[in-house]
């Protein structure tokens, strides 16, 4: 990728799409305010039988899975030292950082005593899968912030320009940034590896979460290898997610899609999907749970959607040259994988869960959906703001600004 360098994008922030996103975010924030004023019950459809809804299934579980692009590209690029992929590392890192921030935010709004969110730091229960997830996510989030620091220093070294009276700190701040940059560049490899290890741990622990629910979880999903399946699916969704957002971003920011890199990333996907699929099917065969597919109900249908639409079809698509060469088909294939993992997490945390005394099934309330959608909208807005402030997206060296934006996808 000669001639491409990450630079802050010089684009208009507000577009019609962005305004819609703002409205969605605002709507979500209103319901969020209600949740903090009147309690969780006032906004959600959660009840004594269904303690976890889409805030956990989508905001947290799916959020963690889709932010996996951060650690898979980090592994590929930093650990395996494949320089070739460096163009996608920064967007993936930003996605992971923002993604995990919103995961933490999701947890924060979902737990009843949000002001005690720090408790796991000092109150430990090593038997708890949730504790492992919590601790790992906290540490990983810190690691992600540290990994992001070089981007900040790159942007601001020599350019610290605080307004008014604060300008007296300019020099000090500049020196601090330089020092930070120097030290970090020497030890950054520790964080790169730590990031991968932590991701592996909590992606799998996230799968362990539902095992304790035992028979409350439908046998199609309840298996002792859930942690492995979660890890494998997270690894498999990493690259498709990077492709997915890279294609959206280039469309939105009017950039040439980085097809050569994406194509090579895409060619790695079939193997990862295949490993995931073979474990998933193998587990089903060994436990004999395919019998549940014979009966037509929400479980079997959702399982089939998850497998066929989310794994088998994209697996076949990623194996095709034509798909890998076409931005549109590549986008569709990636979207399917992302959708598959999203459905998988939703299935595991909501659909498969049937408590012994549920009188009515759980369906998320308007408020719940609003908050989830609002948070995602906020995430996208922040992403847009970040790429405008920091050097994230690589653009041709000679042009400082991509064309004006007229028709963004967002």
């Amino acid at each position: 990728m000669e001639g491409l360098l990450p630079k802050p994008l010089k684009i208009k922030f507000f577009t019609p799409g962005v305004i819609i996103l703002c409205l969605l975010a605002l709507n979500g924030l209103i319901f969020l305010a209600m949740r903090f004023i009147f309690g969780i019950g006032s906004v959600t459809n959660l009840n004594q039988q269904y303690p976890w809804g889409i805030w956990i299934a989508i905001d947290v579980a799916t959020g963690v899975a889709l932010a996996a692009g951060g650690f898979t590209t980090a592994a590929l690029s930093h650990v395996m030292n494949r320089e070739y992929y460096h163009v996608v590392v920064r967007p993936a890192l930003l996605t992971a950082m923002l993604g995990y921030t919103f995961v933490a935010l999701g947890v924060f709004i979902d737990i009843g005593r949000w002001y005690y969110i720090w408790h796991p730091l000092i109150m430990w229960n090593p038997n708890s899968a949730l504790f492992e997830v919590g601790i790992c996510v906290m540490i990983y989030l810190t690691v992600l912030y540290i990994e992001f620091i070089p981007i900040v220093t790159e942007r601001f070294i020599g350019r610290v320009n605080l307004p008014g009276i604060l300008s007296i700190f300019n020099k000090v701040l500049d020196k601090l940034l330089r020092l930070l940059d120097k030290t970090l560049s020497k030890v950054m490899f520790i964080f790169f590896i730590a990031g991968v290890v932590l991701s592996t741990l909590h992606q799998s622990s996230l799968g362990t979460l539902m095992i304790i629910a035992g028979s409350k979880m439908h046998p199609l999903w309840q298996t002792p290898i859930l942690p492995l399946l979660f890890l494998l699916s997270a690894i498999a969704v990493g690259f498709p997610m990077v492709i997915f957002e890279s294609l959206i971003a280039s469309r939105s920011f009017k950039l040439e899609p980085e097809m050569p890199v994406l194509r090579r990333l895409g060619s790695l996907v079939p193997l990862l999907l295949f490993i995931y699929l073979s474990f998933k099917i193998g587990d089903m065969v060994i436990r004999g749970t395919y019998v549940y597919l014979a009966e037509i109900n929400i479980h079997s249908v959702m399982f089939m959607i998850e497998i066929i639409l989310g794994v088998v079809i994209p697996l076949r698509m990623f194996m095709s040259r034509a798909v890998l060469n076409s931005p549109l088909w590549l986008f569709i294939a990636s979207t399917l994988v992302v959708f598959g993992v999203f459905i998988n997490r939703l299935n595991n945390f909501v659909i498969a869960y049937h408590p012994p005394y549920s009188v009515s099934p759980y369906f998320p309330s308007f408020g719940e959906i609003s908050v989830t959608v609002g948070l995602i909208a906020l995430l996208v807005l922040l992403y847009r703001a970040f790429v405008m402030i920091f050097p994230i997206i690589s653009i041709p060296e000679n042009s400082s600004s991509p064309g004006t934006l007229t028709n963004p996808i967002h």
Partner: protein
Amino acid sequence: MNKINRRNFFKKAAAIASVAAVSTQNADSASTNILSDERMGVLVDTTVCIGCRHCEWACKEAHNIPAGQLDDYHDRSVFKKFRRPDETALTVVNEFENQKNKLSPIFVKAQCNHCDHPACVSACIVGAFSKFENGSVVWDGSKCIGCRYCMVACPFQVPTFEYNKAIEPRIMKCDFCIERTKQGMLPACVEICPMEVMTYGPRNEIIQLAKERISLYPNRYENYIYGEKEVGGTSWVYIGNKKMWEFGMPKLKLSPAPGVSESIQHGIFAYFVPPIALYSLLGGIMWLTKKRSDLEEE
């Protein structure tokens, strides 16, 4: 011993990951999980219960939940709907048809069964649940963060949450009247029951008593003690003229609920060997590939 080791490993891991130092000095951070031989239990004889619901009233009185008048509890219309313990009632009685004698319906009281191997204790992220020496499984409000994982984990679907409180919502569940038993009193429901449906005593005696009753009156009881072995055994056990899952209780495996997840959890984090091994492996790969690419550059 295990716990301490694991904690130390955690500390080291934290250091490796260069996380900002966090105090881990909280002495009582680990929850108690004692399975004492002297733990207490309760035998619920569902053939005796008359559905007066005095236990519901007494329970609320004992736990500072608005209870109302005792006489109002004789209202039988509540039995039309199947009820579960919730944040306003830690125990409820439900009515079931008695096939053997339609005139005498069966009443079954539900509350926390106080597992020998409680899923909530294992699951809780901050160790807010403890199983004490007397068998009670108790929630500690000073730790709880309100994540409701205990509700996901509980095989009996017992813990409930105060969804409508914005500040200090509690996990509500039967605590075996730990405050009362500490003072030598009986649990409130056991004490008030006019029929002594519930017999309170050491769990091994309770099981023995259940077996005696079944063998003395084989026509009255189904030969099954619900809770003797379910999910590894519970402190509260039930007998009745049918198996308890005919009366709305879940049919459960006999292995402890937290067993699988704990062994997986401990497998992944066994003395932190797997994470550290992975860390070293990745480090090695990084070093090798770096060397190679440096060579290529030269």
